[in-house]
């Protein structure tokens, strides 16, 4: 199987794309990364592969598209069995999916609120974000990874968004480590993995991206 069989429509700064890349790297799958210019004009392939949302990531496997990052990671896990990203027991799988769903619903939006607001509204946004981090720490407990001893599904769903944390910290004037030390330790643990270090962008570059995004969207 060659890299042409697996194509990822991608954007370097998207935490949702990072999930898919890490999953593919963990499974040792060769893939072709096709960068989409989300501001300049979406490619024909993106528009035809994801007509409903026209968003990245899209995984195109042997010409057939899979959309929505959490669904794509599930697909990658089911299509290439080893190493498994989800646990084997139905109850443990349901718990992992529940945590991933919580992260999907809450984390990125809570972070976005920080750089999209100012003054009192921003203080509230920072507070809300910290509440989400505390819930993540509850999920993590004293384990090395969300799934237990090994890096798995929930870790993959979450780690990409942490590359945006530095931007949130600068805009919101707070430190994640002060409020969620266990989560900070988990971030460092994940960054030791080759697959993660390869995919996660430099937080400095993410910060610059957010500054430009703010300008473009008229949030000053």
């Amino acid at each position: 199987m060659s890299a042409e069989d697996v194509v990822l429509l991608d954007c370097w700064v998207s935490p949702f794309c990072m999930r898919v890349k890490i999953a593919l790297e963990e499974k040792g799958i060769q893939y072709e990364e096709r960068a989409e210019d989300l501001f300049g004009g979406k490619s024909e392939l993106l528009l035809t592969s994801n007509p409903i949302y026209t968003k990245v990531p899209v995984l195109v496997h042997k010409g057939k598209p899979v959309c929505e990052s959490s669904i794509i990671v599930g697909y990658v896990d089911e299509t290439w069995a080893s190493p498994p990203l989800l646990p084997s027991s139905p109850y443990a799988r349901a718990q992992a999916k529940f945590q991933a769903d919580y992260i999907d619903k809450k984390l990125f939006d809570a972070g976005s609120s920080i750089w999209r607001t100012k003054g009192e509204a921003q203080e509230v946004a920072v507070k809300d974000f910290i509440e989400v981090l505390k819930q993540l720490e509850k999920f993590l407990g004293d384990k090395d990874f969300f799934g237990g001893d090994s890096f798995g599904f929930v870790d993959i769903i979450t780690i990409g968004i942490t590359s945006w944390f530095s931007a949130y910290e600068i805009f919101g004037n707070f430190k994640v480590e002060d409020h969620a030390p266990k989560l900070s330790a988990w971030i460092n643990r994940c960054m030791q993995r080759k697959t993660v270090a390869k995919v996660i962008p430099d937080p400095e570059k993410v910060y610059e991206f957010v500054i430009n995004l703010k300008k473009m969207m008229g949030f000053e």
Partner: protein
Amino acid sequence: MADEVVLLDFWPSPFGIRLRIALAEKGIVHEYKEEDVWNKSPLLLQMNPVHKKIPVLIHNGKPVSESLIALQYIDEVWNHKAPLLPSDSYLRAQARFWADFVDKKIFEIGRQLWATKGEEQNAAIKEFLNCIGVLERELGDKPFFGGDTLGFVDVTLISHYRWFLVYEKFGNFSVEAEHPEFIAWVKRCMEKESVSKSLPEQEKVYDYAMLLRKKFGIE
């Protein structure tokens, strides 16, 4: 040891209805516990501390929350009968995508539909019908989204049906007029006992929607 299955639910909730359908399809003996979502029980708060929402499936004392996750859990544990998801990983991803679409789009647009008026409502009606059209195209010539039998997407979508009729009433439009194939699919679903027994009475859902509108000051 016999399995102990409890469903914490609220009668008009599409999210609860879909679990009722799945449990019925698979012939799973269970206890149904009605929750008052305006006055939540200690059991609900204990079983779903993160979201404090129904439905919650409690299997031998262990809770599973979020309806699409609970649907998959039911499918995996009771895999002897009426499979909801196909076995092929690509088709599974497609089924999950469309179920997610139903919940992301239909439910949110529907909420706008009964809660707004004028221009806003018209825009919501247009989008709603557009989404029905998209689903109709996805269904194609198949009797059900799952093929010959009810599948994951069928169970997810039909669970909203009583609310579709509420949207039609408040928005003064007809889904059947624009999308007869969709209604034909609805009728096929309603012929299944697991579906017809799990949906609440239409009149009761209208009355509840009227109550909600009053509660939120929408007239």
